[in-house]
């Protein structure tokens, strides 16, 4: 079987045919890929965080009332994924026991050095703070009504502040508003710096261009909103509650907008490359149509972008003529397709960028192992872990009986 088809097949099929061979010429040190599936998973996770937060901020800052039912879920999703974000990096490092060096002697010329600070800033000053201000009143209420371990947890989470008088809550609102405003550029920074890590590598023509951080940010937003759609619908299905149709329609609308912008920017990248036709365009064209045919053109392009675009576009254009139950299916399918498509995009960038030689004369092959430091198993566990954490959060902080007072409902009750 030709190597380019072999390399695109799933690992389980590929395993017996593995031959780490090289087409053309690659520098001897390039033959082994050093950034593997873990480095695919990391931008994927931070992208989901940034996207989920942006969706939540649509409620707080842009006053999109329709999205309010999913507000708390979006924030909790962002937190669950953010907690897991450093794990792929730790697993990947040659010396994870030295990871503290990134924060102790950060080399400020390196975008990677910014990870520790951006992550710390985002988790503490944006996400946790926003969640605390949102939930503060509920923590006070719950700490008084629940007993046992959960009661202790809620008491701890109040951080000793029990003032829930109207002036205090008004202050919470103002603070929360301010933090979300800071949070939007922070979310852009959280995932933008990841895009910059790739975009700053002038040695690699697939990575090192100006559009890379922009593409990463917009694909992050798309994936985050899609994830929220998926989780919102899945959670309601598990709890046998109806999804709020207005909320779903609003999510679908923003998902469509975000997808349009993302697709435009990614297409622009390709048009620009092909038009300028620099030296690297030959090897990159061969890469896209050869080794990356299935993951780029089929999974990312057709299934991850074009098909959701058609599905979501039809719900926008023909909303009146498409029944709600059909629209719900469309939203769910589009969300799944997009979530898969964005993972394919991360794969194409990270793995794809190492599949061709910097000598521009040849191609590597990538051997995806199942077990091993950077194998499929580890990646699957790391991708599943945020969902497990989210399940715990939902159990603790999103009671299905409507006892909590999410932001939107409280606002509506006041009005």
């Amino acid at each position, binding site marked *: 079987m030709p190597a380019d088809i072999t390399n695109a097949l799933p690992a389980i099929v590929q395993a017996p045919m593995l031959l780490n061979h090289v087409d053309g010429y690659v520098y001897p*040190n390039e033959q082994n890929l050093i950034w593997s599936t873990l480095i695919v998973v990391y931008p994927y996770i931070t992208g989901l965080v940034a996207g989920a937060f942006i969706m939540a901020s649509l409620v707080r800052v842009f006053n999109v009332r329709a999205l309010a039912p999913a507000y708390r879920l979006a924030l909790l999703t962002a937190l669950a994924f953010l907690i897991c974000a450093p794990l792929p990096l730790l697993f990947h490092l040659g010396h994870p026991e030295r990871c503290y060096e990134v924060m102790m002697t950060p*080399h400020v010329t*390196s975008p*990677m050095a910014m990870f520790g600070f951006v992550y710390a800033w985002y988790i503490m000053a944006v996400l946790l703070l926003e969640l605390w201000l949102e939930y503060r009143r509920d923590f006070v209420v719950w700490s008084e009504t629940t007993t046992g371990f959960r009661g202790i947890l809620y008491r701890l989470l109040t951080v000793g502040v029990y003032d829930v008088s109207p002036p205090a809550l008004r202050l919470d609102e103002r603070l929360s508003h301010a933090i979300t405003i800071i949070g939007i550029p922070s979310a852009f920074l959280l995932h933008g710096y990841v895009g910059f890590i790739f975009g700053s590598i002038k040695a690699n023509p697939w990575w090192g261009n100006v559009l890379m951080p922009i593409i990463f940010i917009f694909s992050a937003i798309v994936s985050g909103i899609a994830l929220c759609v998926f989780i919102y619908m899945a959670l309601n299905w598990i709890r046998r509650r109806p999804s709020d149709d207005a909320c779903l329609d609003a999510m679908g609308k923003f998902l469509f907008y975000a997808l349009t912008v993302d697709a435009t920017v990614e297409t622009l990248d390709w048009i620009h490359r092909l038009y300028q036709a620099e030296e690297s365009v030959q090897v990159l064209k061969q890469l896209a149509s050869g080794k990356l045919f299935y993951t780029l053109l089929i999974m990312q392009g057709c299934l991850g972008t074009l098909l959701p675009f058609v599905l979501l576009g039809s719900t926008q254009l023909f909303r009146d003529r498409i029944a709600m139950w059909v629209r719900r299916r469309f939203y769910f399918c589009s969300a799944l397709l997009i979530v898969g498509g964005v993972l394919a995009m991360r794969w194409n960038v990270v793995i794809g960028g190492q599949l061709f030689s910097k000598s521009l004369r040849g191609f590597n092959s990538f051997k995806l192992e199942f077990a091993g430091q950077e194998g499929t198993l580890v990646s699957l566990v790391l991708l599943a872990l945020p969902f497990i954490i989210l399940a715990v959060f939902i159990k603790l902080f999103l009671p299905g009986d409507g006892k909590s007072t999410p932001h939107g409902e409280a606002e509506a009750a006041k009005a």
Partner: protein
Amino acid sequence: MNTSLSRRRLLSTLGRAIAGVATFSAARVAKAAVQKGFVSSQAPKNYDPTKHRWQMVFDVDKCIGCGHCVDACKTENNVPRDQSHFRTWIERYIIKKPAPGSDSPRGEVLVDSPNGGMNGFPDNLVPREEILKSFFVPKLCNLCEHSPCVQACPVGATFDSPDGAVLVDPNYCIGCGFCVQACPYGCRFINPDTRTAEKCTLCYHRITRGLKPACVEVCPTEARIFGDLKNPVPDDPIQAFIQKNKVFTLKPHLGTEPRVLYANLDKEVR
């Protein structure tokens, strides 16, 4: 009265803070002294990195592709002997004659580097009558003036030393691999045993003792030339090279300003 109590409390807190800072600083100095006691360095005693400026140049026309340099480097620096980790390697370029009916003056270009060129090159890759031109190019760290690898390192584990070498601190490197991605010349790798980044160090442990790098030592044709710009020897080969040749660098469009110079480089070399 409230104010005197609070002023006293303020002063005592301030005093305690100053005492804490002083103890902490003393503890830091003590820790550094103790650590220094445990480190016994076998570094050459009188070597001052600011008094040297190492330079490496290549004459491509003289390289015969014997691969002795690759072998010597692996021996000298304990580089893993597998086929995918090299601090230096040789590339062979074979430029074929143009295909019949083609408008180009030169034909297809083939590049190979079997095991980095360590055991030489096979003769049978292209039939001799089809070869227009062929040559060998030694490759290693280009000692960039504006190293993208140093720029990329998140912790300060790789650096430009004052004497012109670009080095990796194996006891500080976290093994993230960013520098390996950032190097346009493919001269870096992650050592599978130490799990840190590694690259040509100009045999730093040799040049600081007045010896030449191992690859220069064993090169049979003086294709590799090494010297100290700040302390040129009489009949310095570096100066002779600079005077005689028009020089090239690899990938000049990237702005890395490599200090390694090549004479007689062909346009096909990347």
